[in-house]
């Protein structure tokens, strides 16, 4: 028996929640048949989330899910050039006409294709590899000052390190620019990071749960980490990664959102109408982080 889960046509943050709700209890008891045939548009975060679902099922020794790939040529081509299928082939039984592997030059909107992050060396390669491209995209396409590049690389590094330091397993990162029509109508650069690890609540539980008592849950764990800068390590230099990312986002009018377990916390700039904290979502393993930097005309607002 397999359970069919539709992947929504608009596979963005909202579509991702619909997808997670479609899976139901985690880990899934039945084999999943993930139907992406109707996908018309997707974000880097949502396709990283899809890989994370496959990774988590594999790590739970579940049956390999089936994935029917998008019928839309543009979406299929986008997933291909983001190297989604290269990674998905290990995690899913793929169905549908696979595009030929993307061998050409990197597309101008892609700063970093989907890249696995397992260890500190991976973070080094990811950050080192995007330096030149980040400069081109942030200053050239988004019109930001050159100094925005350094903070962007720092935000990318600290975001990826969350996987290495806290997840207890591997994860994925991708960096891309796209036209953010729904809320902004302008170009944005997005860092998307996702892992299938223990999540914020379990990572912080040993040192923080007592302090929060009955209030301890995914939402409070996210608040502790993101708002209060709490770390599971007692070292006084810890917990500065998120503080640094927030300072950078404040300067460039950016946004961060982190989903972990059953909650999602966002630090929302004025250009966005997202809700700061959403709780009681359907459970999804690990943590999914998204950093969004808007173009200069938004940053100046």
């Amino acid at each position, binding site marked *: 028996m397999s359970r069919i889960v539709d992947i929504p046509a608009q596979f963005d943050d909202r579509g991702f929640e619909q997808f997670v709700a479609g899976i139901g209890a985690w880990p899934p008891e039945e084999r999943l048949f993930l139907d992406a045939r109707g996908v018309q548009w997707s974000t880097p975060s949502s396709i990283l989330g899809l890989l994370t679902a496959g990774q988590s099922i594999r790590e739970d020794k579940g049956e390999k899910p089936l994935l029917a790939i998008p019928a839309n040529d543009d979406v299929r081509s986008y997933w291909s050039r983001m190297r989604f299928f290269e990674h998905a082939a290990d995690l899913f039984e793929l169905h549908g006409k696979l595009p030929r592997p993307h061998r050409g030059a990197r597309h101008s909107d892609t700063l970093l294709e989907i890249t696995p992050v397992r260890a500190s060396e991976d973070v*080094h*390669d990811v950050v080192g590899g995007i*330096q030149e491209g980040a400069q081109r995209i942030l200053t050239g396409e988004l019109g930001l000052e050159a100094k925005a590049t350094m903070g962007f690389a720092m935000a990318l590094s600290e975001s990826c390190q969350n996987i290495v330091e806290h997840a207890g397993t591997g994860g994925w990162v991708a960096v891309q620019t796209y036209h953010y029509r729904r809320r902004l109508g302008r170009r944005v650069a997005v860092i998307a990071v996702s892992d299938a690890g223990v999540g914020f609540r379990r990572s912080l539980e040993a040192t923080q749960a007592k302090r929060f008592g009955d209030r301890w849950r995914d939402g409070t764990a996210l608040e502790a980490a993101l708002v209060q800068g709490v770390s599971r390590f007692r070292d006084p230099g810890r917990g500065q*990664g998120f503080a*640094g990312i927030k300072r950078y986002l404040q300067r460039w009018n950016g946004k961060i959102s982190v989903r972990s377990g059953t909650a999602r916390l966002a630090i929302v700039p004025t250009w966005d109408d997202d809700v700061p904290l959403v709780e009681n979502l359907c459970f999804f393993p690990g943590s999914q982080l998204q950093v969004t930097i808007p173009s200069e005309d938004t940053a100046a607002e």
Partner: protein
Amino acid sequence: MIVRINVARVLREALATPYRILVTRATGALVRDRIELKLTQYNCHAAVLDFREVDLLDLSCADEVVAKLLRSGQAKFVAIAGLHEDLREQVHEVLEPQHLAVTVVNDDAAPELLGSVSEDSRLAFLELQAAGGTGEELARRLDWPAERAASALEALAAQRLVRHDDDGFTLIPFA
């Protein structure tokens, strides 16, 4: 003895990477270990960490390399050099909440302080740099009560930003 350490070279020795970037805690810990080893080998009491060839430094790595080295006391006095503007910001952001500070040695300007330093200590450091002298002389020049000058200088000495010996308070001759 004061030793000058090229941090980018230490990075190359520690890690096979084509990038001149100091990112991640693991990299920072590797680099710090090597720096501490050099300090032990040279038996020196002061070190200048030269970041001239470093293109990028993240907060985790800045904490591992600079803040932990300051906290370890492996070198009694530490200064940093060759920091470009963006890297300075990272170092400051790491040191400030931990109440740590470091001397920054500049090529074309006088040394300055980075991190958590009170305004009085900063003024006392500048005055010491400009004209040296005892605590009393410094108090007179700044038009402060003697206790205020003494307290500012003692704070600098406690943060190992100046030396305090029989001759009074003096700057460390990093440059």
